[in-house]
């Protein structure tokens, strides 16, 4: 856009390309960082999200066979020997193939060994629906891992958050799953032209994306952007919505949500993916149990339908809550 005025010292970059920048900045900062995955090196990644890294970092960037279990297990073994591996699982759906390595090997290593082992492994996965990839390439898979203690889970929804959280994830001494929403790949944002630690986003801290007084809408990734659009729609109806992006699901920043509810007394959680057994349902349950006295309306979860993600445009569009449905749900809570 020609009207953009770029802040001095910053560069404008999209959500897809910032992945290589964040990886490059950590690879350059810490010689123990290594990166492996299918076609991530010479080919530059299935989404061209990791172009240039192989040329710049050589053997520290490694193309693997199509062996998701070996990718994760190898990352764990390398971590035990002092490296800080980043493993790519091309589509989060493929985590099903290496589920055991993630939930039994990686997540439990520290615990099972009584704290002897440190496994600073980061697993990056492309996530989510909205681009017509069909049932096995479109799932928002973060909820699969929610009840596996030992993992941290981040779900960045902006360029700045992806840059800052991916770098935090790599520096973290615990295993971190980083979900990168592929329907946000074209989203633009600004990051420092040169590596700058002040742009690192801490794990476990939510972002109040938009301040409001009447209803709290909590949403991540694609749904966070739709929640902001919904907040615009609600303004026309005289309703002021506060939008919170948790950014991290484990550990969850309950404090920021609680502070918002102290003001709004109404909670709407918008979650991509089927409704059951996810972070949205957990947040609703925790709010009901822990903050009942703050509420003036029942806490509500707006999620996708309990079906696989359909392929066809009209079907997938209907499956994902849009801004209007989010606004309607928020309005019903205000009217309760």
């Amino acid at each position, binding site marked *: 856009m020609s009207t953009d005025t770029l802040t001095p010292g910053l560069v404008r970059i999209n959500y897809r390309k910032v992945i290589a920048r964040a990886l490059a900045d950590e690879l350059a900062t810490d010689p123990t960082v290594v990166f492996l995955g299918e076609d991530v090196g010479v080919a530059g990644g299935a989404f061209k999200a990791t172009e240039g890294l192989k040329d710049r970092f050589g053997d520290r960037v490694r193309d693997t*066979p199509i062996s998701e279990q070996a990718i994760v*297990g*190898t990352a764990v073994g390398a971590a035990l020997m002092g490296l800080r591996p980043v493993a790519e699982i091309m589509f989060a759906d493929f985590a099903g193939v290496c589920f055991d390595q993630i939930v039994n090997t990686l997540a439990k290593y520290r615990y099972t*060994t009584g704290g*002897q082992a440190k496994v600073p492994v980061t697993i990056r996965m492309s996530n989510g629906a909205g681009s017509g990839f069909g049932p096995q390439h479109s799932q928002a898979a973060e909820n699969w891992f929610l009840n596996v*203690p030992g993992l941290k889970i981040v779900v960045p929804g902006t360029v700045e958050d992806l840059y800052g959280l991916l770098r935090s994830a790599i520096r973290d001494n615990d295993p971190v799953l980083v979900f990168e929403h592929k329907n946000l790949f074209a989203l633009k944002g600004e990051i420092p032209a040169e590596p700058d630690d002040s742009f690192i986003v801490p794990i476990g801290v939510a972002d109040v994306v938009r301040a409001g007084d009447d209803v709290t809408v909590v949403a991540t990734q694609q749904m966070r952007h739709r929640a902001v659009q919904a907040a615009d729609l609600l303004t026309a109806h005289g309703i002021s919505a506060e939008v919170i992006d948790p950014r991290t699901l484990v*550990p969850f920043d309950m404090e920021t949500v609680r502070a918002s509810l102290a003001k709004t007394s109404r909670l709407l959680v918008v979650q991509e993916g089927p409704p059951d057994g996810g972070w949205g349902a957990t947040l609703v349950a925790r709010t009901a149990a822990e903050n009942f006295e703050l509420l003036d309306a029942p806490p509500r979860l707006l999620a996708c339908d309990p079906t696989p993600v359909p392929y066809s445009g009209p079907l997938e569009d209907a499956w994902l809550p849009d801004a209007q449905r989010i606004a309607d749900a928020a309005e019903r809570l205000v009217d309760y």
Partner: protein
Amino acid sequence: MTTATTDAATREQLLDMQRRMHEIRFFEDITKDWFSRSLVRGSTHLGQGQEAVSVGVTSALREGDTTTCTYRGHATVLAQGAPLDRAFAEILGKEQGLCGGKGGSMHLTDLSVGALGSFAIVGAHLPVSTGAAWAAQLLGTGAVSATFFGDGAANIGTFHEAMNLAGVWKLPVLFVLENNLYGEYSPIATTTANTDLRVRADTYGMPGIRVDGNDVEAVLEVARQAVERARAGGGPTLIEAMTYRQSGHSRSDPAAYRPPGELDEWLARDPLLVAARRLGELGVSEAELDAVRDRAQETVRAAADRALAWDEPAADRRFDDVWETR
């Protein structure tokens, strides 16, 4: 070197391996007794009869090298040098256990001696050892990783993924397949289309060697060659060690599925007997051999007594070690 000094060195090394095999055997005798007296929770998997594989292979390793193994892994972790008392304490679920009582019999781990872990999911550890080997390759440490697993594990995906990755990246890994002829209660021929497991090596571009897994000297010899090859950048090796577990799969499995006579044949080739016969040929007296055994028994008993006297963990310790930071 003269033949006399070579013999002396061989004798010393074999005596040391015999001592360690005795210690592991006594360790599992006590574990079995504790289990029958409900001092051990859940399950326990004894590897009695297979001690020569772990002792032989780890004797070819040096400091900095690593191992991973299975739920039937007492032998490997002890052979790597984990302390007997803290291993006992882990099996008893004590605070001073190797893993603070969080893992138990199936998860003995001692990172300080390179015993990276015992794994309760069949095959899950093979890629972990390829990862340790990848780190060694990248960092140029010259370290080698040995991963121990069963014949049954040769049919799970991680086996193929890890073998292929190690083959194509030329990683310094020893894949040590302990072929004890059974996976749980199933004889190998009922689960495995081609029971010649050594040939799996061909598929993944590495040498495959079959060895008598009850002959500790033979195991040591093939392991030495594989280690040398791995350190020189020649890549991985599959070692198929033919052996036999003398007890059932786990807990109180009576192993009634074994054909009559099979156990007796293997007991006649018990690794402790094989090594004792060889030591006799090398001039070690019966009395000396008995002394080695008796000392091992005393050492293990004393370790068990220490472990029994140690504390149970405080209930709050269950919250520790999930995350480093939260």
